[in-house]
């Protein structure tokens, strides 16, 4: 049997209660590994032993660090040491220490959060009793006991639960973002066999063997077999409880551990931890490599020069130190020059870079406007090396549930009998609460103020509105859980829960249901309706109905559904038709989700006939049955009378529409990726201003045609113009949005060539909505965008289902909502509210990008212009790699004399203030175009640096040529000029002069003079004549007018090009900033006329799964035993629910007749 299973791919064998079997380890040398992973989460990287080697290994993977290590080693060779070794050792050590300790701190944090998860408690069955243990102790094959509201620690096979039929409910919010409950059911065999008491013993004796698939990342499928007592039972995903889900509404469930730790489906879904580097850093690494190659080349040429010089001049003279072989001389000179030119490769850059990133991250955390009072949680930059990427984001991929929406549905308005109750223009929090004290079941949660409606209801003024509420309290699939009054409603659809809740507040309290009866308290009067039939919801029908017999005996069909469906099934001359249209219009403008509620009095005769047909068709073969049933339902749902319209607000997170509008203005493309269903996603997209009311949706059929077309782009444009968009061709491109679902996306796997076409279409579109996608697919979409565009992507989400996408995107943002989020753990930035994104991107991101790109360019300029001087000097000293500076100047230049002003700039620079950044989001676009860090800009900077180095050498050369000035005076002059150049350049780029920047500028220039005086002082010379042999030079040079005049002239000439460029940009180009100051933008109010006309109504009914849970209700399987005791005990062993229900009805009929 096992062999067969292997052939069918079921090779993963789990033996219940057999730890020994699963702990067998294969071992090689002293390393061992088992086939089955343990349940310990390890996201940390270092252990005390491996920290040092690993961190060094990681750090020396950075080319720059390795390069500098080589430099230090080379400087220890005396023959080629043009600069003493300690000059570059100090910065290198500094860089390594800072980086290493940062990594260490991060790793400690990871360890802490790991151990938090690993020590969560769970109950494991060990030798016939459950013992409490920790998650990390769990093994494959263990039997577990899970209590209500516990998080499931591993992927389990549900064996048995305390509920009837071994049903149990799980919340999968961490996996797919849906907060409604899903049911899981144990296999029939285990349910019936393990029920015996005491449970421990039967479970301990359980010796089934599960054969199933190897661990994989497919969340919604599971294939397996249970071999037990010589029988084979098929297992499906319905029997599986996934790690990370939460057990709800179920007292106790018992499960057999199948996959643990890294084998679990959720962890298989979370991608590998990848180190993220920013685009700017990539460009920059490229530049650094370019510089190194150039330097090696320059050193080679200089070395050749040295060889030639040595053969021509020194060969004939013993004035100079001659060393025979010119080739050998050249060889030595080559290495000397590499050392000498190495300061052009900015090592301090990386450390400064990290420092700046860290400070920017602190600024993010310090921003009081990104602090959320309610949770006492400021924003947090968890990854401190991606800040400037925030200023370049072009694609924002957002989760829906918990990110855009609060996942709270509120009953805001309703339309009954020609009257609209409630006011959606008032914010839900500001709604004046109604006096519902007369209602003992009221427990708040109604954000609608309609005293007139209550009055009508209570004093029986309007029968229509009473019927409306009866419909709401009857027509649903909600279940009740009685713990105390009022009952808790549990539903597969959050919409229904809200409607039933609203009805409860208004006096129509749904009390309980059995398979055949629904008990409702209408304004205190308890009435029992007989449930004759439940016409279930499918996404095709878009409505559901219940057929009930009233206590008085009449038959009523209550129906609720999408407006198009309901309105066409109404009686011909029903009243308020025009008003209804108007109300729907108004609700949709307020971004509310609407449902129409209707009623039909069914004649007894029709019912008799219909029920017979129903019974016949229910017995039919499964394949045809659905179609027949649908037709049958259609027949019944006719000639209805409209009762009213409900309007539900899917609560958006605070400020979401404003933020999205702002981000769109800033040139970001916002995509929504959600595990939720299409209707909900589209609805939310409209209500959060992601789609304009007149945006057209491009769905799969159409998109597929476009993708398959030979020339997709043209086809797309054509199709757009051909159709209704001929009216307004300009906006046609922006007014389209693509809607996709998970299964459709799966087709992309087979057709990789569609990717680029799809992206080119998507780029034209306003947005892309992807619904019903798995976490893995979310990441695939991010990968798709990354692959086919060069843009920076950002993913934002709050749940574990977003982790993968957050890790894949360039920048991942985790929302730590009220409940705290799993996503935060793997995110680069943690925010409390979606709306904080606008500050994070438009202010912090933009500033960071601006600051860092200015910083990088300036840094390149200052180091290159300073170090390349040696190339020119080489032509005048026989290519001997003589330094032009005092060695201490080389060491201090980057660290002391020029570091603090640029750091100040990198910390504080603001070209425009925060307010203006938000007011004119367009200024953000320069980051998306990478205007400040493009290769061209960097090349220009390098060119300027080369020019400056040229000037820095040749003007002093002209002055000092054939004069009595000595080498040391020239050194001081050139270093002074270099310091002045760097200082003037920073003054030119600084636009935001704080006291600190002024002070640091002054201090660093003064430091140059002071430190020069110190290193050239008598005191130090007397201690070590060899290291401080410049003694007295600065004393003399600093009072020499020629030195000063030369230094000033040189510095000015060196910065003249950049000064001119700045002036030119001020004069000629209309700077973004100037636009900001001058142009007053007219908001796009002009379109409003058009908007009304094409406004689409959004009426939908949200259920998470394809078909509603009507089957369970009518079969009675899911009716809870905790219902009020008055209820009759139900016997639930029937598999044909409808026919059963029908027999009951017949009985009822016969008795009543």
């Amino acid at each position: 049997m096992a062999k067969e299973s292997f052939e069918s791919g079921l090779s993963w064998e789990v033996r219940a209660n057999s730890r020994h079997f699963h702990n067998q380890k294969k071992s090689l040398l002293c390393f061992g590994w088992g086939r089955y992973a343990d349940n310990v989460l390890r996201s940390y990287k270092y252990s005390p032993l491996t920290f040092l080697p690993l961190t060094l290994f990681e750090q020396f993977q950075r080319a720059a660090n390795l390069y500098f290590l080589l430099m230090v080693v080379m400087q220890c060779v005396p023959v080629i040491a043009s600069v003493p070794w300690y000059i570059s050792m100090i910065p290198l050590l500094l860089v390594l220490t800072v980086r290493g300790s940062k990594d260490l701190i991060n790793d400690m944090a990871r360890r802490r959060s790991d151990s938090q998860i690993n020590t969560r408690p769970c109950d494991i069955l060990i030798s016939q009793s459950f013992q409490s243990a920790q998650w990390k102790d769990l093994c494959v094959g263990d039997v577990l006991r899970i209590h209500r509201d516990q998080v499931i620690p591993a992927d389990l096979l549900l064996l048995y639960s305390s509920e009837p039929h071994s049903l149990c409910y799980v919340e999968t919010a961490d996996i797919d973002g849906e907060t409604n409950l899903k049911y899981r059911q144990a296999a029939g065999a285990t349910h019936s066999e393990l029920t015996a008491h005491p449970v421990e013993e039967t479970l301990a004796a359980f010796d089934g063997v599960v054969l199933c698939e190897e661990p994989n990342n497919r969340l919604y499928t599971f294939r397996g077999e249970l071999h037990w007592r010589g029988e084979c039972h098929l297992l499906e995903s319905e029997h599986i409880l996934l790690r990370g889900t939460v057990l709800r509404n179920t007292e106790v469930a018992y499960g057999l551990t199948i996959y643990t730790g890294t084998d679990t489906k959720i962890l298989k879904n979370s991608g590998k931890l990848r180190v993220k580097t920013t685009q700017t850093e990539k460009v920059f690494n490229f530049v650094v490599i370019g510089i190194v190659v150039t330097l090696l080349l320059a050193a080679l040429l200089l070395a050749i020069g040295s060889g030639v010089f040595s053969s021509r001049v020194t060969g004939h003279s013993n004035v100079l130190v001659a060393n025979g072989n010119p080739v050998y001389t050249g060889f030595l000179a080559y290495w000397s020059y590499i050392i000498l030119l190495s300061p052009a490769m900015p090592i301090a850059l990386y450390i400064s870079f990290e420092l700046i990133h860290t400070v920017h991250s602190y600024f993010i955390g310090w921003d009081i406007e990104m602090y959320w009072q309610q949770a006492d949680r400021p924003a947090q930059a968890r990854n401190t090396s991606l800040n400037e990427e925030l200023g370049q984001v072009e694609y924002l991929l957002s989760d829906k549930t918990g990110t855009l929406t609060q996942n709270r549905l509120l009953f805001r308005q309703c339309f009954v009998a020609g009257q609209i109750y409630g006011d959606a223009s008032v914010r839900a929090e500001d709604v004046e609460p109604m006096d519902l004290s007369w209602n003992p079941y009221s427990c708040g949660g109604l954000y609608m103020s309609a005293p007139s409606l209550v009055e009508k209801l209570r004093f029986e003024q309007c029968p229509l509105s009473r019927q409306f509420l009866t419909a709401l309290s009857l027509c649903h699939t909600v279940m009740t859980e009685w713990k105390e009054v009022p009952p808790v409603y549990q539903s597969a659809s959050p919409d229904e829960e809200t409607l039933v809740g609203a009805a409860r507040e208004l006096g129509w309290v749904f009390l309980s249901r059995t398979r055949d009866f629904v008990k409702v308290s209408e304004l205190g009067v308890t009435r029992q309706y007989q449930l004759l039939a439940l016409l279930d919801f499918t996404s095709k029908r878009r409505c559901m109905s219940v057929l009930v017999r009233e206590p008085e005996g009449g038959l009523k069909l209550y129906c609720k559904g999408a407006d198009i469906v309901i309105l066409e099934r109404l009686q011909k001359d029903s009243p308020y038709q025009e008003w209804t249209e108007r109300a729907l219009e108004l609700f949709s403008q307020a971004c509310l989700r609407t449902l129409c509620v209707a009623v039909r009095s069914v004649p007894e005769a029709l019912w008799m006939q219909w029920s017979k047909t129903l019974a016949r068709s229910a017995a039919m073969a499964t394949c045809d049955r659905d179609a027949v049933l649908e037709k049958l339902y259609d027949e019944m749902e006719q000639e209805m009378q409209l009762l009213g319209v409900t309007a539900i607000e899917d609560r958006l997170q605070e400020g979401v529409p404003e933020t999205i509008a702002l981000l769109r203005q800033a040139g970001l493309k916002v995509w929504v990726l959600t595990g939720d269903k299409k209707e909900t996603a589209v609805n939310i997209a409209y209500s959060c201003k992601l789609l304009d009311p007149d945006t057209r949706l491009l769905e799969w059929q159409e998109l597929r045609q476009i993708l398959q077309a030979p020339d997709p782009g043209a086809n797309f444009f054509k199709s757009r113009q051909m159709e209704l968009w001929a009216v307004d061709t300009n906006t046609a491109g922006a007014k389209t949005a693509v809607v996709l679902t998970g299964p459709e996306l799966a087709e992309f796997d087979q057709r990789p060539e569609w990717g680029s076409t799809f992206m080119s279409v998507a780029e034209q579109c306003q947005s892309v909505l992807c619904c019903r996608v798995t976490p893995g697919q979310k990441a695939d979409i991010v990968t798709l965008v990354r692959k086919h565009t060069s843009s920076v992507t950002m993913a934002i989400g709050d749940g574990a289902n977003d982790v993968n996408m957050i890790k894949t995107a360039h920048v991942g943002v985790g929302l730590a909502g009220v409940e705290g989020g799993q996503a935060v753990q793997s995110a680069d930035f943690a925010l409390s509210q979606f709306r904080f994104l606008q500050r994070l991107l438009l202010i912090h991101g933009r500033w960071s990008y601006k600051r860092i790109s200015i910083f990088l360019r300036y840094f390149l300029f200052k180091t290159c212009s300073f170090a390349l001087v040696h190339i020119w000097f080489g032509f005048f000293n026989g290519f001997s790699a003589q330094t032009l500076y005092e060695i201490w100047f080389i060491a201090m230049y980057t660290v002391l004399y020029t570091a603090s002003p640029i750091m100040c700039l990198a910390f504080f620079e603001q070209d425009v203030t925060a307010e203006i950044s938000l007011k004119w989001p367009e200024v953000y676009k320069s980051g998306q175009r990478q205007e400040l860090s493009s290769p061209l800009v960097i090349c220009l900077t390098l060119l300027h640096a080369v020019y400056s180095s040229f000037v820095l050498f040749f003007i002093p050369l002209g002055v000092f040529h054939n004069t009595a000035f000595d080498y040391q005076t020239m050194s001081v002059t050139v270093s002074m000029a270099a310091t002045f150049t760097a200082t003037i350049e920073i003054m030119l780029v600084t636009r935001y002069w704080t006291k600190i920047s002024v002070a640091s500028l002054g201090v660093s220039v003064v430091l140059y003079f002071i430190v020069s005086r110190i290193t050239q002082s008598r005191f130090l010379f007397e201690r070590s004549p060899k290291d401080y042999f410049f003694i007295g030079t600065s004393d003399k040079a600093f009072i020499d007018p020629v030195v000063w005049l030369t230094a000033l002239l040189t510095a000015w000439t060196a910065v003249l090009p950049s000064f001119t460029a700045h002036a030119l940009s001020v004069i000629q180009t209309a700077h973004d900033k100037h636009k900001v100051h001058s142009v007053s933008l007219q908001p796009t109010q002009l379109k409003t006329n058009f908007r009304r006309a094409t406004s689409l109504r959004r009426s939908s009914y949200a259920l998470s799964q394809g078909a509603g849970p009507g089957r369970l209700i009518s079969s009675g399987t899911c009716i809870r035993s905790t219902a009020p005791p008055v209820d009759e005990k139900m016997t639930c062993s029937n598999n044909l629910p409808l026919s059963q229900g029908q027999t009951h009805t017949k009985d009822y009929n016969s008795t009543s007749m």
Partner: protein
Amino acid sequence: MMASSYSAKDEDGHITVTGPGGAALRSKKPENTAFKQQRLPAWQPILTAGTVLPAFFIIGLIFIPIGIGLFVTSNNIREFEIDYTGVDESSPCFNCSQNFSWNSTRPCTCSIPFSLEHSYENNVFMYYGLSNFYQNHRRYVKSRDDSQLNGHLGSLKPSKECEPYAKHDNKPIAPCGAIANSMFNDTLELFYNDPNGTKVLIPLRATGIAWWTDKHVKFGNPGDGLNLTAEFQGTTKPVNWRKPVYELDSDPLNNGFINEDFIVWMRTAALPTFRKLYRIISRRDNMVPTLLRGNYTLEVVYNYPVRSFEGRKRMILSTISWMGGKNPFLGIAYITVGSVCFFLGVVLLIIHHKYGNRNNSADISN
């Protein structure tokens, strides 16, 4: 001159939340300080054409006069230069330059007549100039022992840097190294040919030509400097020298390592063509020029070989000004850069008028 906006923003100060019962339950709320909220008061210059363009003209207008001033000053300096290498056969030093060896015992002398067109006022400085002499070559510059030169003969083991001029005949060389070894050792004497036929030796001052710090701090004789012969016992003279270091001068304050000629030589030049101060001709009194207009003879004891590296030797007489010796380059450079700035200003002005007008409104805002 500059449009500016000074944005001083309110500063609310620190806010800390203390929980009930006095226990400091700190809220995680960030402090509302100007620093943390990035609202530091700052001066934000708004650059406009009106502020940037004048800068070019102003800098041009500053630089050009400075340049002219420097140029005029430089031109007022009297300078006379004569090449005595003896490359030409007609040159009086031709013979000396031909039969050269560092260690020849018989000094070769030659005398070069020249005439000064103008009389030289004030102190006149006498330089020797060398060309194509790479005194800035790394291995040459390195080849010295500052510790030894400071008077620490100590262990008699010169620094390794001095190799291969560290030891000779197993004795340490003092002063060691290539720089010292190649010290300039021509002797120059200046005679004034009086119109009445007599040659008058012009007194040359050999002291005061080195830097004070060099003479008093950087260089020092071993011991108390009184009995140099004894102090330098156990060392040997550099290979190319004719006499040991303690016989450079009879004046004990100008002998040994603190000999000023030696110090001047040891202060290496920046570039391959350089001059070094040799002697000073002091002004006698205010009435008579230091050097009269007329004919002179330069008597050279020709010891220093330069032909091997195609070098040249020159003697320069120069007066000085506040900016030192003659230096036309600096003045010209200032004038050039000043003019370039001016020119750029004009070009930008034209561009501004041609293209920039439509942005005028933008410039004025805020």
